[in-house]
């Protein structure tokens, strides 16, 4: 409940502040958001498994974001930024899908 409220609060805050993304962070933010979504999906799955641990959630959230951003950064430096971004997005997308599938199986047994 608090998590959902936090999500809504974040969206409202983002709309209210109208903050611009700093140019330094601009290339990493989309990947970071997707990585955070992946962490969130994983957390939801762990919650339904009864294995949720807030410490792990925090660590995985930030490590996901950090690793994703680092990969994009390295890719940019190597000149394969867009390809590597795509690769990271594909992997994260697959993970989100599999987590969503696991959640679905647990909730609906299907």
């Amino acid at each position, binding site marked *: *409940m*608090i*998590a*959902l409220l*936090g*999500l*809504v*609060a*974040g*969206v409202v*805050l*983002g*709309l209210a502040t*109208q*903050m*611009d*993304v700093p*140019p330094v962070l*601009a*290339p990493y*933010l*989309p990947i*970071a*958001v997707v990585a*955070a*979504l*992946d*962490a*969130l*999906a*994983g*957390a939801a*799955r*762990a*919650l*339904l*498994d*009864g*294995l*949720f*641990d*807030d410490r*792990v*959630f*925090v*660590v*995985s*959230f930030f*490590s996901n974001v950090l*690793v994703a951003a680092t990969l994009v950064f390295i890719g940019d430096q190597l000149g394969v*930024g867009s390809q590597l971004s795509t690769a990271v997005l594909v992997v994260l997308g697959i*993970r989100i899908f*599999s*987590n969503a599938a*696991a959640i679905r*199986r*647990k*909730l*609906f*047994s299907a």
Partner: protein
Amino acid sequence: MSAEGPADSSAPPPTESPKTPPRRSGAQPVEHGSAAWRRLGRALSPKLSKAQITAGLLCMLLGFAAVAQVRQVGKADFSELPQDRLVELLGRLDVQADQLIEENRELERERDRLASDQTNEAAAIEAAQKRAEVQGILAGTLPAEGPGIELTVTDPSGKLTGALAYTLVDELRNAGAEAISLGSIRITGSSYFLDPEDGQGVVVDGILADSPYVWRAIGQPSTLETALRMPGGVLAEIKAQGGSWTLQARDRLEIEAIKILPPPEYAAAVE
């Protein structure tokens, strides 16, 4: 990603989906489902545990970042475009710039061509005007001015004939006269001289001219004068016929008389 045993909430890799006990005992899926729902309900119940607050804060961060990113994408700024996309855009702009430069060059060439055409045309018009002037003077259709002589012949006895007038014109032409007039009649190549059937005077181009005859001729005055004063020449003849004359050389003489030429009825210019 950090793999921290079974409690890894960021989800284990998909290939290693955890086999929880209810999952393994596929005989009781309903029980497993209800357990999951119970956990979900517990999680959704509003209670301030450390885990709830942590999750809430992280979700807030995620929501904030997501909204910021969505707004950034909506703005479509160049600053967040990846490098290779920028390179591609730059290349496309280069190609466009080349095309525009080439087009510019072509248009400039066209402009220069048109401008030179215009000057050529102006020069042609000027030349044509000059030619028309020359032709007009020679044909007698334009007033003329320049150095020349003025010859006034008085013939009280009326003995001067058309033939003599013709001789006078002939002498003037031979001496290089470019424009000749008798009184208000312009003398041209097609002029003719007749003796009137009765009375005195000379009929020039159908118009009767009478004494005193005022001849004007444009040409080199000294040459014209010499030609007329020649012993046994026209002036001597006039004197012999009982006429008298005065001859004046002028630095500047105007011949106002013009000849109206009817437009040719049959002849056309060869194109």
